[in-house]
């Protein structure tokens, strides 16, 4: 464990990523204390320029809502959606991939056809259609993101399981009479953990991007302030008020960057052999 931390900390990008994530997390946790007022509340006159008025560091939007407050409250929702939708897609992808790899044959055939289908359809367009038809809400957004992002997980798991299946310790477990379920859960799954962890970090990044794109298109949960919504709300007045769109977009960029950097750091730290080769 200590070894792992040392390797992770030795990667400059990973450290920057971790710091960025800590800032975002703190912002998300303390947003109700920093800005107790609802981010939807009209707080000042509209189109207040940034860095001019105390308490309104990032100015106000077209209706006079505090941009900084929206940013803080949006941090929570971005992280929440990123995390939950990734967990849901892991919950779909891991069992499907593990079964395909372990059982092979027609099970593998069918499951991989389904996976291919979901990979070939244009993902963002599918997500848009799903959210629009199910009506925009936290649940429909998470469902849509999870439904478009599980195929790579299934493929990864299948590959890992295929590679592990022929190893001696699995044969030993089979000979000792363990059931398929036990072998998959107890023997195989723990060995696939590190690539799954790396992939999850990258998936959270993609999920945050997808969520922001959906709410930019006006498909966000109407009750929830999110970064994508803020960029979208500033779109039509970009000529007069650059700050309304600029700050939330920058926040998305930095958060997504954080998860990508952490993912790469984890990859190097968990697979030290790979790094030496590259």
């Amino acid at each position, binding site marked *: 464990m200590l070894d792992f931390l040392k390797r992770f900390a030795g990667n400059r990008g990973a450290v920057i990523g971790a710091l960025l994530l800590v800032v975002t997390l703190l912002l998300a946790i303390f947003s109700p204390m920093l800005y107790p007022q609802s981010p939807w509340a009209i707080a000042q006159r509209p189109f207040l320029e940034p860095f001019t008025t105390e308490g309104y560091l990032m100015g106000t939007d077209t209706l006079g809502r505090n941009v900084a407050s929206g940013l803080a409250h949006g941090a929570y929702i971005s992280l929440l959606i990123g995390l939950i939708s990734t967990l849901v897609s892991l919950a779909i992808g891991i069992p499907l991939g593990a079964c395909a790899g372990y059982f092979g044959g027609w099970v593998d055939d069918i499951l991989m056809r389904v996976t291919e289908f979901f990979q070939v359809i244009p993902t963002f367009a599918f997500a*848009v259609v799903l959210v629009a038809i199910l009506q925009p809400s936290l649940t429909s957004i998470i469902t849509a993101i999870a439904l478009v992002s599980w195929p790579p997980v299934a493929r990864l798991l299948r590959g890992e399981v295929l590679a592990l299946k022929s190893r001696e310790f699995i044969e030993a477990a089979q000979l000792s009479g363990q059931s398929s379920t036990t072998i998959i859960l107890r023997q195989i799954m723990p060995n696939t953990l590190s690539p799954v962890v790396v992939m999850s970090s990258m998936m959270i990044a993609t999920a945050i991007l997808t969520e922001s794109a959906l709410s930019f298109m006006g498909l966000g949960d109407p009750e929830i302030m999110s970064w994508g919504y803020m*960029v979208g709300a500033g779109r039509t007045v970009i000529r007069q008020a650059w700050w309304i769109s600029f700050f939330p977009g920058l926040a998305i960029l930095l958060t997504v960057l954080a998860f990508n950097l952490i993912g790469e750091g984890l990859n190097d730290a968990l697979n030290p052999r790979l790094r030496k080769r590259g």
Partner: protein
Amino acid sequence: MLGFLLTRVGKAAVVLLCITVLNFLLIHLAPGDPAMVMAGEAGEADPEFIAQLRAQFGLDRPLYVQLWSYVSSVAQLDLGYSYRQNLPVLDLILQRLPATLLLSLSAFVISLGLGVLAGTIAASRQGKPADTLISTIALLFYATPLFWFALMAVLLFSVKLDWLPGYGFETIRSGYTGMERVLDIAAHLVMPAFTLGLFLMAVYVRMTRASMLEVNKHDYVRTARAKGLRPALIQRRHVLRNAILPVVTLAGLQAGQLVGGAVLIETVFAWPGIGRLMFEALAQRDYNVLLGVFVVSAAMVLMFNLVTDLAYRLVDPRIRTT
């Protein structure tokens, strides 16, 4: 070759069939009455109109009969009717398709060209400032929300610097013809195409760089170096040619990303393509158009995959697997 083509077209047809079934399920999953979904109304529709729709689509018949009639009408290229625009959905899409094709293809060429170029430069100067710079930029682009970057590009290049037009397909009522018109459209195309290609460019830079570093370790590269060939020549003739193959494979598979990105980019730049059509359909709750754009964009991605696969087989005759 013909056999390969037939299998691939068959597979694509199966995928399209599945998407059609998926669309049908989605219409029935939607909260409320499918007739209202198709009418694009949310509870405010004239009851007589809804009753007429219900009879027209046979919503009182069993589900499998409805599925069959839906699938067969899509198979005959009937994507339904947009009650908002008073036009068949297919006509609406066909009007907009050329703009999207122009945008996506330009973005694809730009991202692949610049991506491979920058990746090659980075790999041949591994660890040096040029490599660090290119890798950092690629990392940033990889994390940038496209729609935000597009807005910022408009702000900088159109509002502040006034170098490029910030929205639309061409200057309206300019009366340009011939070459003048082509140049006008090209000027309008620059920003959307670059911003759409941004994410993919980052992907290709990273792929090319990694792939070239991998190929660099092969024995034949060492032989070439030992022979005393110039480094630039080795990179170009021995390394790049072999390193580019996995990049081309990936390039074809990423086509779906372009179509998805096009929805966002067309929204920002008011580019009159099917992505913008999708955005307008969202605002008007015009579900028929929405589903139609989804089917057509999926068909586009399938076509694109097929073409890149074919190109790949022509470029590299060693590939014989289907």
